[in-house]
């Protein structure tokens, strides 16, 4: 099993999700993270002082999939997450040692 972590543009989430769903992967977790990188945050202004918020809000996806599905999911993210402008984000892949489904104690790929 692989864990696929992706830092994406929040606005691309729906597209990526739709693509992944089509692969039959309906489960994932996501949450907001703050990113620093090549892309700089949009300037804000308050009482005459311009400032750049230190970070860009981004969405992080976490999906654990059986090895054979990993490539498909990665392709989804690469295709649907891309705007070709700086700041599209990254994908990282990790090894998962074990997985459990809390509801019924399934383990391994059955748990996904």
């Amino acid at each position, binding site marked *: 099993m692989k864990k696929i972590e992706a830092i994406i543009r*929040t*606005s691309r989430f729906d597209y990526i999700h739709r693509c992944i769903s089509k692969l039959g992967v309906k489960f994932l977790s996501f949450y*907001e993270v703050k990113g620093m990188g090549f892309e700089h945050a*949009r*300037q*804000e*202004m*308050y009482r005459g002082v*311009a400032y750049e918020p230190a970070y860009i809000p981004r969405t992080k996806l976490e999906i654990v999939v059986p090895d054979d599905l990993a490539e498909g999911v990665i392709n989804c993210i690469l295709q649907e997450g891309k705007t070709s402008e700086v700041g599209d984000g990254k994908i990282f892949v990790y090894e998962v040692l074990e997985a459990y489904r809390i509801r019924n104690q399934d383990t391994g790929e059955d748990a996904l």
Partner: protein
Amino acid sequence: MEAPIQDLFTINNLWMMVSTLLIFIMHLGFATLEAGLTRAKNTVNILFKNTIIPAIGLLTYALVGFNLMYPGAEFAGSFFGFSGFGLSLPEGWDSSNYNAGYTYFTDFIFQAMFAATAATIVSGAVAERMKLGPFITFSLLYVGVCYPIVGMWKWGGGFLNTLETPFYDFAGSTIVHTVGGWAALVGAFLLGPRIGKYTPTGMKAIPGHNIPMATMGVFLLWFGWFGFNGGSVLSADPGTVSRVFVTTSLAASAGAIAALITSYIKFKTYDITMVLNGILAGLVGITAGADKMGVLDAVYIGAIGGILVVLGVIAFDKLKIDDPVGALAVHLVGGIWGTLAVGIFGELAGLNQLLSQFIGIAAVGAFCFGSSWLIFFTLKRTVGIRVDEKEEIEGLDINEHQMRAYPDFASKD
């Protein structure tokens, strides 16, 4: 002048001044209601509009509005009049020689506070997608010119006031609320719905971001309405003003309960935003005849208003006219209903009156629809009235104001 008369004049004027400040605070009511029922990312924008409108409204009303709306007796029965720019104090302006109920300055400031409400109504319906510049331009013209012209037709002694059975509109169900409502309709229509509201897979909810703020807005509006309707008596006459207080409050209450029941039947849930809209619909409904209705009349008018507002919200959604705060259902539908109700309930009820009410609604509607179409359409074709897609999705605050309403809070999406 004998003391007693002067005393009564002072009392009347005092009430008119208190009414003025009650109407003033309605602007805060509109600001918080509209901000509460829209999304956090557009909050600075809607507050900005609602803050700048009263300022613009008061200044333009001083410059042209007042003299367009009350051009004087020589324009009685006509469609248009103008008695010059700026304010100039007439002889005896601060005594009962000017008017038994108020000084010239009280008259001006009371009317000026009314004026700005018309534009405020629009801001809710076009929220979350209209550009700031064009909105300010529209408001300037609409409050500065269109509203006073319509106001003159009735309150300035114009042709609606000299119909055989004069059109009756006590505090402005038509003259104020539908004036705002028609422009809101045109604006919402020409702008189109917010992105994501009506999708191929059906209508989506776009919940307002701050229900407490919306609730506060409605309470403040009800509070201010005591001045809006109560001040429209134009004196502190105990019988009439207290009657107006009662009819106004009972209509609001009945509107709340009726909207609660209607929305529960329709949606099987207790939707507070519908109850809030119901209160407003009751208030708008009673406005045209608040001084001519009995206790039960007021309850009926309010209750029907409360039902209509829920059905109205549903109907405009069916028509895919996207009105984030329900301004159309409240002010346009409610205003028309209230105006007609004068011909159906209360002291003036009768077919002739009903006819005159129709004439008034139609005349005002035609003019307001036409003029606001003209302004909005011209703006649309020239500078454009809608922010671009990216701006709308990211929010108007960060794009039009480079600012956030709640920078310390984490947002959900």
